[in-house]
């Protein structure tokens, strides 16, 4: 529905923030969504104070995944690793500002999953657990 493609999402989709790769990084992870073939690579540079200094993403995906990734990179810069851990599904959805179905949710959260796996080695199963609700 058109509502899905609000102006803020389209802007991030058309002009994504922090797109590219980092020459120097402390953490990096590539994550796939085999269901739709999406792929995202996240590079992070964390300084001695455990603060995220630089972030970059590359890969391809749908507008929702591109926009949410772009937004997430903005959210990450300047945060400590501990603070970054707190970013959850809700935070991403708030930022997107739209209602989203179960299939697209996976698109919207792909980069968050990649960041968590890069930053502190979250496992596939732990991710499932985080996503699970009754």
């Amino acid at each position, binding site marked *: *529905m058109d509502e899905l493609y609000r102006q803020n999402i389209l802007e991030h989709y058309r002009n994504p923030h922090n797109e590219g790769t980092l020459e120097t990084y402390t953490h990096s992870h590539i994550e796939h969504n*085999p*269901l739709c073939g999406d792929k995202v690579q996240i590079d992070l540079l964390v300084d001695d104070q455990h603060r995220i200094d630089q972030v970059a993403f590359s890969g391809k995906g749908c507008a929702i995944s591109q926009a949410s990734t772009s937004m997430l990179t903005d959210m990450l810069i300047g945060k400590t690793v501990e603070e970054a851990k707190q970013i959850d599904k809700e935070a991403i959805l708030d930022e997107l500002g739209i209602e989203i*179905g*179960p*299939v*697209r949710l996976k698109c919207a959260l792909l980069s968050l999953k990649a960041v968590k796996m890069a930053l502190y080695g979250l496992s*596939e*199963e732990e991710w*499932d657990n985080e996503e*699970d609700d*009754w």
Partner: protein
Amino acid sequence: MFNTKKIRQDFPILDQKTNNKPLIYLDSGASSQKPQTVIESMDTYYRQYNANVHRGIYQLSEKASAAYENARKKVARFINASTWRELIFTRNTTESINLVAYSWGLANIKPGDIIITTEMEHHANLVPWQQLAAQTGAMVKYIPITEQGYLDLAKYEAWLSPAVKLVAITQMSNVLGTIPPIKTMIKQAHAVGALVLLDGAQSVPHMPVDVQTLDCDFLAFSGHKMLGPTGIGALWSRKDILSAMPPFMTGGDMIKRVTLEGSTWNSLPWKFEAGTPAIAEAIGFGEAVEYLDGLGMANIRQHEIELTSYALEQLNQVEGLQIYGPQNPQDRGGAIAFTMGDIHPHDIAAVLDGEGIAIRAGHHCAMPLHDKLGLPATTRASFYIYNTAEDVDRLVEGLDKARELLTRD
């Protein structure tokens, strides 16, 4: 308290006559009737949001996916699973048990291993283990039943050893009604390292079943016996066990990635659900457990204890009638198998049918048990939430009529 009259109004089928007599349905042990809400939930699905699940981006499909997964959560909560990921939809109890035999069994059972089951099992919890044993070189041992219809627990305890890898046992017999002391049996099995599979086909519909309190390892049950539709059942197991198991059937939806060289599997529970699932049926199943929850499983059990108690009392007075299974209603469910003189069970059922009473006759898919009882067949009445003491009275009248008509001299 338990308002059977009100409940009956929710079941459209009960408001009919057979042979000009009001229908008395006493075969819920084979398959239960369905309340309006269950029937309508499926009708609504087909009329308003039918679509394939999981991969669709359009609204019908998103709605169908949410309803399907929500049904899973309802059924998982109903048996107090710790997560919905432990609840796999199957066709019925039989498929659930076969899934375990094929997937867990072939990967874990070795020559010389022992599988313990009982003499009173339904074929669904017996033939798969015989097949598995034949394929793996394992051995099946059958806990005998006593004269009173209880399990010979001394034998069970004596047989437990580290060679026992699985105890597969019914939580409620569909013929004798017997409810074994499952919790103790599970503790004993675990003490020697064996896993325990419960056949919950009869127990889950009729009493509170909590997989975490029981601490069982597998639980198999069917939707159609607990107010749900045909074509849907469930297998519950612990996440660690399921994660280690290879898939059973393969194909769409159960994979993460497929290449010409091989495949990786999807997360739980989808790893075990290949192909388009029984979507409408899952939704109906979810409605069914909601209906049961509304009544309260403890109340349902209490209602059935009372009704069984009355039925045992009345049936014990019928001339020539012999009941098989425990006489104490606390130790048993509401399936009562009996014979009456040498009148063939088929004839009894046929005469009762003429009186509008639906009752089962045969071996009830428990031939070894009937062999043990020395009977080719029995007649079985089984009760559920919509049955009343009046139904029992009608049954007794029908039995008297059958005896009159069919006694030979």
